[in-house]
């Protein structure tokens, strides 16, 4: 295969940006700034994985917090049993993936908006489960069924920060690989017309499940990394609808069904967090209003809007690839 010079240029740009971001903590950037960059990459991974399902498969998934919570709690269970952190992260991702397979035969019978509500029930149910269940002993920290994550003493904040950058970049790469592969074409076909897709030989169930599993896997890892940073997980936060809101906001504001959308949207969300750090409620109200306005006026989000402009069109012509 020949290397596309434009793609190569893009790769260089991303590598440089990542390298600069990666050395920031060493250079002594203020901690709050690092926090926002950390959040950016975590949210980016989450938004990308939601976009993969909602924007590219037509599956409006509201059960993403289930994967985040499962990731976090698996990390707790692993570390409390003396297993290494990284094994805990991987374990959480695997648990989330297996969980996806278990629920898939039920939720894939639902279409469109029914799928959305069906998946909404899942994290709520898990929240109650983890509220009752004490997976590792009876030690309760703070309120309810929350747990500290053990084994964090040897891990520096910088380390966790790098992990966040890593998972954020991985999510971009996965999107890119998935969408430019045979699978991406299959998903596009399913989203556009599922009966024609199925009579063109596409196994709809298998392809959707594959996307769902990938999404759960990466979402769980991003969740685990977030809770490594937090050091503490409780059912109310781990399985909270707030996660879903963040993903929806970032993706829809930036532009659903576009690869760049979640990146732009996440920048805006994190920037709002930063600006209104002391007024979290107001920040969320603004985000809610923003979501409504975008849906009413520019449903394709900022990217969809930008794509119509001349500058973008000419940029596109410059970087046109060799895809089918």
């Amino acid at each position, binding site marked *: 295969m020949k290397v596309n010079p434009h793609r190569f240029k893009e790769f260089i740009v991303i590598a440089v940006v990542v390298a600069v971001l990666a050395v920031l903590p060493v250079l002594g950037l203020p901690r709050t700034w690092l926090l926002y960059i950390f959040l950016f990459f975590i949210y980016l991974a989450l938004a990308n994985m939601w976009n993969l399902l*909602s924007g590219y498969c037509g599956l409006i998934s509201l059960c993403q917090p289930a994967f985040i919570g499962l990731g976090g709690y698996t990390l707790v269970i692993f570390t409390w049993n003396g297993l290494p952190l990284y094994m805990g992260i991987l374990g959480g991702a695997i648990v989330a993936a297996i969980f996806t397979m278990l629920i898939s035969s039920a939720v894939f019978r639902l279409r469109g*908006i029914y799928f959305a509500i069906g998946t909404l029930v899942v994290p709520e149910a898990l929240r109650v489960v983890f509220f009752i269940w004490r997976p590792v002993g009876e030690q309760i920290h703070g309120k309810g069924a929350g747990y500290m994550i053990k084994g964090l003493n040897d891990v520096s904040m910088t380390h966790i920060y790098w992990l966040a950058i890593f998972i954020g970049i991985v999510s971009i790469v996965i999107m890119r690989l998935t969408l430019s592969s045979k699978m991406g074409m299959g998903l596009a076909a399913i989203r556009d017309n599922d009966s024609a897709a199925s009579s063109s030989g596409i196994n709809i169930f298998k392809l959707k499940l594959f996307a769902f599993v990938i999404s759960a896997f990466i979402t769980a890892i991003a969740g685990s990394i977030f809770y490594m940073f937090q050091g503490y997980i409780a059912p109310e936060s781990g399985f909270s609808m707030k996660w879903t809101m963040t993903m929806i906001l970032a993706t829809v504001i930036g532009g659903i069904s576009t690869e760049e959308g979640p990146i732009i949207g996440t920048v805006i969300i994190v920037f709002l967090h930063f600006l209104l750090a002391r007024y979290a409620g107001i920040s969320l109200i603004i985000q809610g*209003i923003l979501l409504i306005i975008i849906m009413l006026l520019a449903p394709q989000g900022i990217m969809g809007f930008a794509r119509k402009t001349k500058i973008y069109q000419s940029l596109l012509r410059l970087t046109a690839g060799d895809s089918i």
Partner: protein
Amino acid sequence: MNEIFSDIATPVISGILLGGLYTVIALGLSLVFGVMKLINVAHGDLVIFGSYFAYSIMTYLGFNPVLSLVAGIPLLFAVGFAIQKYFMARVFKRSMEAPLLIAFGISLVFENLYQILFTPMSRGLTTSYSLESFILGDIYIPVVYLLNLIVALIVMIALSLFLKKTFIGQAIIASSQDIRAAQLMGINTARIFCLTFGISAAISAVAGVFLGLTFPFTPVSGIPFLIIAFGVVILGGLGSIIGTFVGGIILGLAQTLGAQYISASAQMLILYVIVLVILAVRPQGLFGR
């Protein structure tokens, strides 16, 4: 009466009465779902809107929360009407997801408004009768539970009379069965949709008050009650008032019996599992075709 009997009678009776509350919460969702094929994910937040409105009237003006409905019903009707007219109607034709995402935005705005106005603390509508129980032999049943069933019956009868006897009611039913045909009958379906959403929200005002009398609520209580309402609707099937009532009672019973015989903290889990199982086995609902 022996002890075993009262052991089972208490959860059964309170379950049925609680089912009345769930019916009222679900009726509004069912109505909008039936007519516009839209699941309003902000429905729970509208119900909680009703609860907080009654709470404010009670706290600041000292009126009984049930009396607050005189203002609460028209207020929520207007809110519902406006949501349909200014938001949903504009994206309705575009896709199934667009109204869903807008409802999400509305839900986010409402929840955080409640947080700011009323703090995240749990509130309740405490009245002179809210702690009283009536006694039947060994069985103690809270008065508010009985009220729930009475209100459910009143709302159900009023709604079915309205749908059956009035021109607008008939137009709503017609629109739920075939929108295109309804338009060709001369029905302004856009307006019918606004009215339907308004009526749904007005019923939520009633639901909110009795929810507040029965349970404590917080700004984020909307989601669990949305799920309960959704469960009731899929249990009872679309657009059927009696079906909704049956669904409400099944969930009410599941909750009280579950709390009695399995564990009090798992009662919500039992409801969620029932909803998930029904979705997996019969997505069209128990009574659906």
